[in-house]
């Protein structure tokens, strides 16, 4: 039974990516071009127009945006997934957790391409590979679990509160500025800094920058706390979806 759902998730992810590729003229190239354009916009605004004077600002910004966009797309796509699959949920008996999982996986596949591009750029800038790269594995795994957990939470609630659609983007926007994606958290007043570092994404991005730019191992205790929070949220969100499952099919079309 379990294996069957795994097969369903994997094939649906393949189908999702394949369909997305077929929907545009440039296909897979968009997986790279779209985030690259997004990065270019931030670069233009913060590095050129606002003349952010921080040293190493370009790698700093690119790493932050790469890790952030992965999280953001998981949450915004995954968050809609159950709501958009309601017609299917009415037709067949299928565990609804499949739908947000497929979106998170599809966005993770795309993230791998962007990560590869990021590494090439960093190496080009002279930030050489180092042993701390090993720590990318736990950092990225924790981010995946955290992103999936938040995606599940929105996915669980959205069918009952379609109004959340108007909220998700705003919440993500605010979270981005609170995660130190475009500016270093050092510029945040000391009194606020503690609050900002409670944000799991801020911790993960910070760890990513340490590894990729300075060859620093992450702060394991901070990462451990984030991992625990992520796992707890993941378990809670999965349980919530399972608990609500009988009710999705009874929502009006």
């Amino acid at each position, binding site marked *: 039974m379990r294996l*069957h759902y795994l097969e369903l998730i994997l094939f649906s992810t393949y189908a999702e990516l394949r369909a997305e590729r077929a*929907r545009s003229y440039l296909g897979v190239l968009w997986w790279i071009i779209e985030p690259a354009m997004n990065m270019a916009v931030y670069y233009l605004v913060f590095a050129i127009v606002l003349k952010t004077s921080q040293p190493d600002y370009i790698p700093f910004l690119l790493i932050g945006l790469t890790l952030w966009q992965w999280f953001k797309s998981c949450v915004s796509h995954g968050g809609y997934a159950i709501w958009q699959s309601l017609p299917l949920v*009415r037709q*067949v008996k299928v565990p609804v957790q499949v739908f947000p999982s497929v979106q998170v996986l599809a966005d993770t596949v795309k993230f791998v391409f962007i990560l590869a591009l990021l590494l090439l750029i960093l190496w080009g800038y002279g930030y050489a590979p180092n042993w701390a790269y090993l720590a990318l594995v736990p950092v990225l795994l924790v981010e995946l679990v955290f992103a999936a957990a938040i995606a599940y939470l929105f996915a669980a609630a959205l069918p009952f509160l379609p109004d959340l659609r108007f909220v998700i983007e705003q919440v993500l926007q605010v979270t981005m500025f609170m995660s130190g994606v475009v500016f270093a958290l050092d510029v945040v007043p000391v009194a606020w800094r503690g609050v900002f570092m409670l944000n799991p994404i801020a911790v993960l991005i910070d760890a990513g920058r340490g590894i990729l730019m300075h060859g620093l191992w992450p702060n394991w205790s901070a990462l451990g706390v984030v991992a625990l929070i992520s796992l707890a949220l993941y378990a809670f969100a999965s349980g919530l979806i399972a608990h609500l499952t009988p009710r999705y*099919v*009874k929502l009006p079309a």
Partner: protein
Amino acid sequence: MTAPVIAMENVGIAFNAQVRIGAPRFWALEDVSLTLNRGERLGVIGRNGAGKSTLLRTLAGIIEPDRGRITRAPVTCQLLSLAVGFMLHLSGRDNAVLSGLLLGLRRREIEKRLPAIHEFSELGDFFEQPISTYSTGMLARLGFSVAMQVEPEVLLIDEVLSVGDADFAKKSGAALRARIHGGTTVVFVSHSDAQIREVCDRALWIEHGRSVMQGDVDDVLRAYHARAPQTAAA
């Protein structure tokens, strides 16, 4: 006599009328009881909105009852659903796999059945093309061919006995009738007396979400029409 495959006792199903705080619920099924025995072919009759489709989805396990009880033997039970989960930009082959997975087949089971799906659907080279290029008839053929590969122990059918243009309708109708009369347990919803008589050996009449009568096909049809003489026999 052996235990029934599925038994429903005073089952009620409520839907949310709207997505809004405090929105009222309405009862699509109020009080339905039925027993389904192995190998039996049960016909469900009733007017539009009587709750026939809701009943089928409840039997399929898609909807859980809000009151009453449903007990089922460990059997696979599937609604005959066409084109489930089809994605426009995928090929016929990929859609067959996707749909099969959604209908509960394992990946290797579908892979094994792909040649049969390809052949039955008569799609030829189009099988490898995106279904966005298909005509309505081709889509119906693919949908039916995939659905027929799922072989549940209890088959639930909502009206549809055949699909597609004249030729394929004959072929699909024959295939489905062969399945129905091949010993599968069947629940069949229809507005047509003729189809109910042809397919079923027992009938259930539901009215406003309540089971009114269950028994011999002719007895139930006679009682149904006696209550509502204006209902034309198809």
